[in-house]
């Protein structure tokens, strides 16, 4: 019986395509849950925003009317402006965090303790931060009010009762933990600064601000990027502080979009799911701008790395 031809050992379809299939298999669970819990709800929100619906009865299709109403809604306008204030002022956490981390990046006895103390506000709950600041701002016994009184200033109604000051007051409260967060990001970043480059720069006569600007900060770029991302996200998610400190008041002057959406759709007096969804869509669009930027810059980085 002559050996007619060489028979390839039998291999399953999976074995033959292992290299191509495996990554997809690993991705599948993640993609599935991302699609079901993130992508699908996004489109669902878009859909609900076209209806008039109280969450219980029949939903009535009204096209873009919810968005039309948003344009005339002054409470929405206030929330939008407040969101903008949050976005801009919250970024202060980045330079503040940087300077605290530079200050703490030294070797003296007990520095670990100081670092932990500075990091402390980030560890405690936002609710606690909100409560602490509400007492701090209290118009009768708050220490902030007393301090302003010493230099002859008075904010009518207290910080949280004054329609103009209230948003800034809450942002200041939010900056406390956010600064600590940025600080810890920069502290780890500073660990990876190349000492040889610093040495070389020093030999060239760089010191002080020049050293910081041209040698240290460029090396901290990854940390800055992460700090920027988490701060932007933090600013857009600002909900708990507002809820605990003012509930959007006085008369809605400290609302942001996320809080307004909650009020309209989910709170005790909210029955307008469609309107709430429309606000959520607007918030999503704002976030999308940043998300697109983050993705783009990460993509650029990946490309540059190869």
């Amino acid at each position: 019986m002559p050996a007619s031809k060489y028979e390839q050992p039998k291999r399953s379809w999976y074995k033959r395509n292992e290299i191509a299939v495996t990554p997809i298999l690993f991705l599948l669970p993640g993609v599935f849950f991302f699609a079901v819990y993130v992508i699908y709800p996004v489109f669902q929100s878009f859909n609900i925003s076209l209806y008039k619906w109280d969450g219980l009865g029949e939903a009535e299709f009204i096209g873009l009317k919810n968005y039309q109403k948003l344009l005339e809604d002054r409470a929405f306008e206030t929330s939008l402006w407040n969101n903008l204030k949050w976005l801009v002022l919250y970024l202060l956490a980045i330079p503040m965090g940087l300077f605290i981390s530079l200050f703490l990046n030294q070797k003296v006895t007990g520095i670990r303790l100081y670092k932990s103390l500075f990091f402390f506000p980030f560890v405690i709950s936002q609710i606690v931060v909100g409560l602490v600041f509400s007492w701090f701002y209290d118009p009768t016994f708050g220490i902030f009010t007393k301090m302003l009184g010493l230099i002859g200033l008075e904010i009518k109604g207290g910080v949280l009762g004054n329609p103009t000051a209230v948003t800034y007051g809450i942002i200041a409260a939010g900056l406390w933990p956010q600064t600590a967060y940025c600080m810890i990001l920069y502290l780890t970043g500073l660990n990876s600064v190349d000492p040889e480059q610093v040495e070389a720069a020093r030999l060239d006569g760089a010191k002080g601000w020049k050293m910081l600007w041209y040698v240290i900060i460029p090396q901290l770029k990854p940390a800055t990027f992460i700090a920027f991302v988490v701060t932007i996200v933090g600013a857009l998610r600002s909900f708990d502080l507002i809820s605990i400190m003012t509930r959007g008041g006085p008369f809605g002057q400290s609302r942001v979009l996320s809080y307004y959406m909650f009020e309209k759709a989910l709170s005790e007096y909210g029955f307008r799911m469609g309107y709430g969804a429309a606000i959520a869509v607007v918030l999503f669009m704002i976030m999308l701008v940043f998300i697109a930027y983050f993705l783009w810059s990460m993509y650029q980085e990946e490309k540059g790395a190869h």
Partner: protein
Amino acid sequence: MHSIIKTSFAAIVAAGITATAAHADAHALSGDLVIFSDMSNPAPRAVMESMVERFGAMHPDMNIELTVIDREAYKTQIRNFLTADAPDVANWYAANRMLPYVNAGLFEDVSDIWEGQLSDELASTKGALTIEGKQYGVPYTYYQWGVYYRKDLMEQYGLSEPTTWAEEKANCQTYLDNGIKCYTIGTKFLWTAGGWFDYLNMRTNGYDYHAALTGGTENWDSEATRATFANWRELIDMGAFIDNHQTYSWQEAMPFMVNGEAASYLMGNFSVASFREGGLDDSKLDFYQFPEITAGIAKGEDAPTDTFHIPSGATNKENARAFLKFVVSADNQTLINNGENLGQLPVNSLSSVDDDKFLNEGFAMLSNDAPGGVAQFFDRDAPAEMAAVAMEGFQEFMLFPDNLDDILARLDEAAVDIYAE
């Protein structure tokens, strides 16, 4: 914050309460009964638990499951459990607050319970539980609103309880001249301002106008409503209210009165317990009905009613109906509303009011001095959305009375959409 108390036959026997089963219904029921309750504060919670215990003793074969949910969380959870996993009995509120659930067909029509004698016994709240001629729940308690004041301060300045607007303002001026604010209030949560509007509007324009306004058939920007705000403004311009009220909750506003920095508080009777804890005994704390403003107008009062309902999706409706009948019975109402329990007013006219100064005054006021009508409260009479927008406007008005034109225009604009449904 959930807790489940399973009351089984064995537990009842062990507790030795079988004696109360003596006056049980003719036939004892069996099967299951699932109750969701929002009575999560300590006193109401004890009341709810004792009601379940006593009802269980009457029907020893019934397996009753009680779930007490935090009162604030309940307000949002009810939407989920009514549609998805309905209990047999659920707490809620009367009037417009139950309208969305009735419209969505989630509350069972319980007109049969109201038939006959019970309608007379519960006549004072029948209107608040009726929608298009049918009843959708039963009341278990209500309480009066009015002006709680420092009796000792009033005596100190030689004043007496005002009965007219002029007297009210004259009293207030005396307090202010002595460095005391007339009214404490905390508007951080907005509804307290709704109470002021209710009374000012009911006294200025009468109950019927007020009902029409909250019901959406009157405009906000009108002569009549402006008159109400003008009266309110008189007090604001005098500086009658405490400063910075927008930063306080209703509890945080209490110390001003307890410490004697403010003379009175327009509030519901539930505040009495806190006043007493704060050290104001009956020699220092007293109550008067909100005075007359427009002469000759029949006085209306706020008396919010808390209720029990049967969800349409309930599985043991027979047992649920028996429980509702038990809740509204005169004996039970007397017991749960006495000073040691809820400390509020029983709804059943055959029950007796506990011997408490404020309960007696409140009961007399609601029975005899409220010929105009009994309202629920601003945020229960007006649709929820309208209430939210309007109460925010009230707070703005109290801080910036000059913004009135703008506020009224805004309210009318919101009303167009809200009442169109």
